[in-house]
């Protein structure tokens, strides 16, 4: 029987290794799996590469993981959002690496990782610093930059409702990076507000099919 429901956050996060690349869903504060991210501090993995659109807000969630010194490198599109304090301090002190990626390219690289592609040509970044050192190719009269996929050893995503099969729905714009990161994680763990018992979610409403999800944990609102 398929049962992906983990009883505790610790159980869901078991086995995450030092040096892992960890994809974390969310845009600003919406859709960040804060419980899982803070659970990762407890879990203890270090030397992580963290992939998120931003780089944490305040001193909780991603910022707390950064402050705990567990992250070697941050991959994001915009690390200096309002309320981002921990990352700028670490970066200024030379204590963390940064790879800054155009937002659509970040997302597409993650999807490419999840979809088994070796790379793609995008118009984004042509003629900018982002294209430095990368192949630029003219295709059908337009220039494109070659970008490579991102895979996560682990993806931590925040859904809304789940079932024992790992199927997920999301809520409003908190959906953001969840579906693509779920695809791109070798091990994908979701925190959700509700677990539907019985026959599973409405198959027409499922956004992330359970095949992409390894563990689901219910958290309080």
């Amino acid at each position: 029987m398929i049962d992906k429901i983990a009883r505790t956050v610790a159980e869901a996060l078991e086995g995450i290794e030092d040096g892992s690349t960890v994809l974390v869903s969310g845009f600003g504060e919406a859709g960040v799996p804060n419980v899982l991210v803070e659970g990762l501090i407890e879990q203890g993995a270090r030397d992580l590469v963290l992939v998120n659109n931003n780089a944490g807000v305040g001193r909780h969630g991603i910022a707390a993981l950064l402050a705990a010194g567990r992250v070697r490198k941050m991959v994001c599109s915009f690390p200096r959002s309002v309320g981002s304090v921990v990352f700028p301090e670490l970066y200024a002190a030379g204590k963390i690496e940064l790879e800054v990626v155009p937002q659509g390219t970040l997302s597409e690289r993650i999807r490419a990782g999840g979809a088994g592609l070796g790379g793609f040509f995008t118009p984004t970044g042509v003629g900018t610093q982002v294209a430095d050192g990368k192949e630029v190719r003219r295709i059908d009269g337009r220039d494109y930059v070659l970008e490579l996929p991102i895979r996560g050893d682990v993806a931590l995503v925040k859904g809304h409702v789940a079932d024992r099969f790992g199927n997920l729905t999301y809520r409003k714009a908190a959906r953001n990076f969840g579906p693509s990161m779920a695809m791109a994680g070798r091990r994908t763990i979701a925190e959700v507000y509700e677990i539907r018992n019985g026959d599973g979610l409405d198959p027409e409403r499922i956004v992330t099919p359970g095949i992409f999800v390894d563990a689901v944990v219910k958290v309080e609102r």
Partner: protein
Amino acid sequence: MAEPLTRPQIAWRIAQDIPDGAYVNLGIGMPEMVADHLPDGREVMLHSENGILGLGPSPAEGEEDWDLINAGKKPVTLVPGGAYFHHTDSFAIVRGGHLDLCVLGAYQVSAHGDLANWSTGDESRLPGIGGAMDLAMGANGIFVMMELCTRKGAPKILENCTYPLTGQRCVDRIYSDYAVIDIADDGPVVREMIDGIDFAALQGKAEARLRLAEDWRTLAAPDL
């Protein structure tokens, strides 16, 4: 002599040029003001990079839903006909040429439409790109909303940008405090300028050589 347009007035002027039924992305910051000035009777669908079509006005205080924020991370609402989708699909919309218009701020615009709006090249400053590069290369029309000069009086329309680029040859039109300027194949063309400035004075506010359209008109906006 007429005063230069205020930011709300520039926003108002841009709003007049957004057609009914258009799909539009308003960049974070100043361009967001355009939404407040869309003429009645025009149904415009606003896109937000994080995965929304159909942005509505800010919610009343106490009604905020923090799962429903815009690209600037501020709480918003959804209009009828709106939709949610995931972030990668949202940038498929951007890059795939599905947006009719995008309004962006700018540090600098070059004579041939290069845009610099993400970095001043100051290495001591934490870099951050966000969605600007995708929007600049992806939307069908790129409107820039800016003042013609920096607060220190330096011109922002240059022969070539000196700051790191956001996108090459992407700007279609600049809406500014003194003028509306198209980026034509042969360089910037002034379509509108405010009353009481002459073309020579306007040229003084740009490094790139401007050309005045024969059919130029007066740039004006209501008091706002």
